[in-house]
């Protein structure tokens, strides 16, 4: 085996053996994983070898034959956060939006700051949030007489424009999903409202408000709530709780508001209304 000449495969079969062992392992693994085990895996095992292979590759072919009777489609919103929607919703023209906004000032305030406690302020509100709500008013998944009429009279491009305008106004504190670290944002805090805002209540399936609505948390399509009008917040929570507002994707708000007590709803609305970006 020594010497200058390269030993032949027969003199030094190690490399050959190695490749053979690795290949054998692969054959066994693929045979078990793709042909044999799938037949015993599901409650309804695949019928044919083709089915078996499809199953192992991750095509879910079963179930297509079922559910031929579909329930009526009822969706909470027609907005989905796809690349196209996000691009469209964030590509608004602020100048164009300013013109459209003249229709809004009567209720939402001269500079997007509403003085009527049941109407939300819009100044500084995230563009995606405004865009989604306008589309929901248009499609009727969120109900409001005046807003539905207004939204139906605007085009999606105008939604983006007017959202860009209000988002650029100073008003509601800008919440970029950041805040200074602060002790007492856990279950160790004795204040039940702050516990709800920052830690939630998992026993009742309530997520922390702040993880989507700030301060210090952000979720696409969820509005920052700091300094929003108190009565508006309270009414929306009540509407979610009773199901009269139902345009929340995956229904987090209906679930959470439904689990809150009346006094908690009032206390949360109050806490957010008096809050600044740094938190209550």
């Amino acid at each position, binding site marked *: *085996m020594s010497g200058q000449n390269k030993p032949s495969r027969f003199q030094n079969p190690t490399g050959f053996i190695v490749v053979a062992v690795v290949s054998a392992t692969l054959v066994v*693994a693929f045979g078990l994983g793709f042909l044999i085990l799938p037949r015993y895996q599901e409650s309804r095992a695949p019928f044919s070898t083709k089915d078996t292979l499809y199953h192992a590759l991750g095509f879910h072919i079963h179930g297509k034959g079922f559910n031929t009777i579909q329930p009526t489609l009822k969706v909470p919103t027609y907005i989905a956060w796809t690349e196209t929607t996000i691009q469209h919703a964030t590509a608004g023209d602020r100048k164009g939006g300013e013109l459209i906004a003249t229709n809004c000032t009567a209720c939402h305030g001269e500079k997007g700051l509403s003085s009527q406690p049941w109407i939300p302020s819009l100044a500084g509100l995230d563009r995606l949030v405004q865009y989604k709500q306008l589309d929901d008013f248009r499609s009727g998944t969120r109900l409001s007489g005046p807003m539905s009429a207004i939204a139906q009279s605007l085009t999606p491009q105008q939604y983006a424009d007017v959202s860009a305008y209000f988002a650029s106004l100073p008003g509601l504190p800008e919440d970029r999903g950041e805040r200074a670290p602060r002790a007492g944002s856990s279950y160790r805090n004795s204040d039940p409202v702050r516990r709800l805002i920052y830690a939630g209540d998992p026993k009742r399936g309530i997520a922390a408000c702040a993880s989507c609505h700030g301060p210090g948390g952000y979720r696409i399509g969820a509005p920052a709530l700091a300094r929003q009008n108190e009565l508006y917040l309270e009414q929306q929570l009540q509407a979610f709780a009773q199901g009269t507002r139902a345009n929340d994707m995956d229904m987090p708000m209906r679930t959470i508001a439904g689990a809150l007590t009346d006094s908690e709803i009032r206390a949360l609305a109050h806490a957010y209304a008096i809050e600044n970006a740094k938190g209550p």
Partner: protein
Amino acid sequence: MEHSKALSLAHLWTAFLCFLPAVGLGFWQMLMRSPLPAPVDDPNVYYASVTAHGSIMAYVFPTFFAMGFGYAIAVSALGRPLQGEKWAWVGYALSLIGTVMALVPVAAGRSSVLYTFYPPLVGSPWYYLGLALVIIGSYFWIALMVVNFRTWKRENPGKPVPLAMFAITACAILWGWTALGAVSEVLFQILPVTFGWSHTIDAGLARTLFSVTLHAIVYFWLLPAYIAYYTLMPQAAGGRLYSDTMGRITFILFLVFSIPVGLHHLFMDPEHGAGFKFVQSVLTFMVALPTLLTVFTITASLEIAGRVRGGKGLFGWIRALPWEEPMVLAVGLSLLLLGPGGFGGLINMSYAMNAMIHNTSWVTAHFHLIFGGAVVIVYFAIAYELWPRLTGRPLFSKRLADIQLWLWFWGILITTIPWHIVGLMGQPRRYAIFDYSDPEVAKTAFLVILSVIGGCIVIGSVLLFFYVLVRSNLAPVAESMPPIRYALSVNPPATVPALLNGFGLWNVILLALVLIAYGYPIGQFFFLHNQNAPAYSLTRGITK
């Protein structure tokens, strides 16, 4: 060992100086999750902290350690100056800059995405760029290991490459291949979003690419410890290595089998079918082989040393071993930790059993037991071994070093065993806070507090480690310091088959296996399942 001392020392100091605060963060995280009072109890800070802890412990600390150890091996095992030392410093600088770049946005709370990134979650681009720079710096090291390996082979035709150099080169090549997964995830999936060129991430593809790195990275952490097992410990124990060949086979097996197994981190993910998950589960069992070989070889080597020292009988050799030697003690304790750690790993990699423990504290406990326990305890011993050689100053106290290792051993056990149990009880991982007024959660309170006590011991051990190092550094330079010696094997090989003296064929097998195991799982995203999801910016930089 005259050469490149400053180079190795700079790497090792950087590694441990990053390690120190990361341990502190880890301890605070345990407090946060416990019913005990915790300062600054803010979940946002928790996630920033976990990101910093994980990024340092997974990328920064082991990378600097392996680089420093690698350069020391290249110089001392090959007995020649390091070729390309200038480039090594360039790599060091890049990795150091990358570390700062990555950690500043984390500290600012702008990149709390955890070290595994979790797309479609996205944080500050500086975080990803920083980590990429850490990895790019380490590629200089990989290249230098390969270059020095080949130069030595060319200058010493027919001679077996010293096992330590062979092994650290295997480690470097493994890291070179496997890091490509995370790097391509960052380059092609995450950075385009953070720069605003795209608003969506294919979460399935991104997770799959990361899984290419996610498992083999643990072998990148582990191999330096195994190198000490094979080459430093038998020497410190006054014996010989049982088999040089077994060592070579072990490192080759790690190189070949650690990458095409990463899907076992995605058993519960919907983007892959059961077939490839099963295949990679089988391949993962193959990667348990080199560890079993190692346990056998190292125990045999310990027995040789014990019997040379006069140990008799079935177990007498164990008592005859020089347990006062930090390297021997560390390897012994490491083997003990490897036992429960390894068997826990077998559960994680089993396609069916994994479902029981998936995303529970069991998993966190497992990798802390293996990496924190079995691996880092040997890093300490390597430091005790190398420091006197690199600084020329004798170790301050072997006795304190031994106490430190014992504290670490017990600390890690007391931390991780309760963790495993609460994991089985269903405690999820990655949660910042638990509501202990919930009776289901309250059941875990005692065990969680117990593991915090383990954490206190770990903190004590780390402080002692730094005390020993700093005191050693303050001592006067000794007149002569014996050079680092690597263990001879019982039958030192005069020649070894070419296959066991290089990596040519093994790289080919590795790539073939990766292609077979990952070709379809990655390829499917390009022609079958597009899983684009809107990127979730932690901060609003993207959408506003």
